């Protein structure tokens, strides 16, 4: 286990370095921050001066190195646009996004797992076909459109949930539904396949022969094994939620990382955008690593492969 774990950790660190460099490189090449700060129609000398001040005329690799060094010392840089330390800004916006992402995962689970399980227990039944239909439709729906339709529905017709802001728990209901709906098809299909596989296995036949049936069979024998792949995909889905929060938070006017990221992009604030891209990527890498290690711990066959 230790051998497997250390291999995975080393790989994750390499990936993290490569990804942060890619993000740094892509965003540095895409634009010229110096002329963005100087504003439109600035004198070339002014732009050159800003470039000198920020160290933007050094080779990219050197810039990346010094940026990385600062990050390791807890200095995430200073925002061009907000004129505050990027770290402080991120900490300020983090709680909203974290709450939203976790509530979205909760929505996904309470919809996708029951639907997937029922679909697997009664294949080709009406409910199986219906849930497949829901999955196909949900995948084709733009999330911002679903958000606006919910706003029309709950803002005008049934005004029970607030449609913007992030002050109360109620504010999270509609955004969590929108963000959670996105993962429902994937988790539902995975649950369906998992439950079907387990139901067809020898040990379930044995359990049945021993007299297990109904809910007890399902909870004790089937779900425990069928949901293993779901657990690992969930951690990855949580990573996707961070990226998806851009759209949801913007539509519902929530002051989280996603909306903050959009504002920083539009403001041409490269250091903040770079840090956010890297932060989201690191979260994703961390969660995937966690899922891998969890899986290996639960299933020794993976460790030895």
């Amino acid at each position, binding site marked *: 286990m230790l051998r497997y774990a250390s291999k995975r950790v080393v790989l994750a660190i390499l990936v993290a370095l490569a990804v942060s460099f890619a993000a740094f490189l892509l965003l540095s090449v895409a634009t010229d921050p110096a002329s963005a700060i100087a504003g439109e129609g600035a004198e070339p000398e002014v732009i050159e001066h800003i470039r000198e001040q920020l160290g933007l005329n050094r080779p990219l690799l050197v810039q990346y190195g010094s940026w990385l060094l600062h990050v390791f010392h807890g200095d995430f840089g200073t925002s061009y646009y907000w004129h505050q330390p990027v770290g402080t800004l991120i900490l300020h916006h983090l709680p909203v996004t974290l709450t939203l992402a976790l509530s979205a995962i909760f929505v996904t689970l309470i919809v996708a797992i029951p639907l997937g399980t029922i679909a697997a227990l009664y294949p080709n039944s009406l409910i199986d076909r219906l849930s497949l239909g829901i999955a*196909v439709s949900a995948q084709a729906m733009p999330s*911002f459109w679903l958000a606006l339709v919910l706003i029309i529905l709950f803002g005008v017709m049934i005004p029970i949930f607030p449609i913007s802001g992030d002050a109360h728990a109620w504010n999270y209901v509609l955004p969590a539904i929108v963000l959670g709906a996105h993962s429902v098809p994937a988790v539902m299909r995975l649950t369906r396949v998992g439950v079907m596989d387990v139901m067809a296995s020898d040990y379930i036949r044995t359990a049945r022969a021993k007299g297990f049936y109904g809910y007890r069979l399902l909870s004790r024998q089937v779900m425990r094994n069928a949901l293993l792949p779901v657990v690992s995909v969930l951690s990855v889905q949580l990573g996707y939620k961070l990226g998806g929060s851009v*759209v949801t938070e913007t539509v519902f006017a929530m002051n989280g990382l996603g909306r903050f990221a959009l504002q920083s992009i539009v403001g041409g604030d490269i250091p903040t955008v770079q840090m956010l891209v890297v932060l989201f990527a690191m979260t994703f890498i961390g969660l995937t690593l966690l899922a891998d290690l969890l899986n290996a711990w639960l299933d020794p066959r993976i460790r030895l492969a």
Partner: protein
Amino acid sequence: MSEMDLSFKAAAASETGGELLDAAPARPKIWRNILHHPGLMLGLTILGILVVLAVFAPWISPYNPYDQHLPQRLLPPVWVHGGNAANWLGTDHLGRDYLSRLIYGARVSLLIGFGAASIGCLIGVTLGMCAGFFGGIIDRVVSFILTCQLALPGLLLAMALVFLIGPSVGVVILVIGFLHWSYYLVVTRAATQKIRDLEYITAARAIGSSRLQIMVTEILPNLFSEIIVIFSLEVGVAVLAEAALSFLGVGIQPPTSSWGLMIAEGKVSVFLRPWLVILPGIFIFLLVLAANLVGDGLRDLMSNESRR
């Protein structure tokens, strides 16, 4: 090394990977069965209609989508009180005919959908075939690149890159294409590994074909069925990505008509005139649904062929 990530991707792409791979060596005769698959027929019909609308937009659309008639701003559709038959689906905030803008929006969406899916296809299939065919160190490097790509927050990076480079249809196609190739890679890599050791490849090698020749003339044709399924699904993904970018104001810019942009423009008066938001959304939904139905349908047909 990164088998876990690959297997995750394969699991997420669940049915495609497994079932298609079995179908790989035999080229299925699918055309006969298309007529008997309702989902696929529905998808092809919707897609066909939208393609016709897009291609013949100048002849089909009742008005020029850029013509502004300020006195006739924000007219409702014909079925809402105050609507008139001259502007079937009403007009937008600048008095432009909404139906004409929706029809021209199909052009942008289809162009970006097919363009981005093609670029992704080129990158993903090339990397996937090399990794699957050569194995060893090349496979490891490609797997590492894939792991990195999967870790990057796609939508956020796409938004930043498109907006910073300068939003235009071309840039949107390039950026979305360059960020969506992992699915092609995973599937073609696995399929190539399966085909690589078959006898006819050994035979081709024996008669002196070069590696490149084998890859292009012997392996690539056998990947066609997998690639077309993924291509179809990726068109849907790219359309959704473009819609999100344009909706957030960092994609297609006015006055070009894009469905996502139309929703953003209609959002201001969403309570008074919900149709401004709902109509373009239905078009996006139909196009993505059609792309997914075609992809899923072709996959069904191919896996049925292989079971026979």
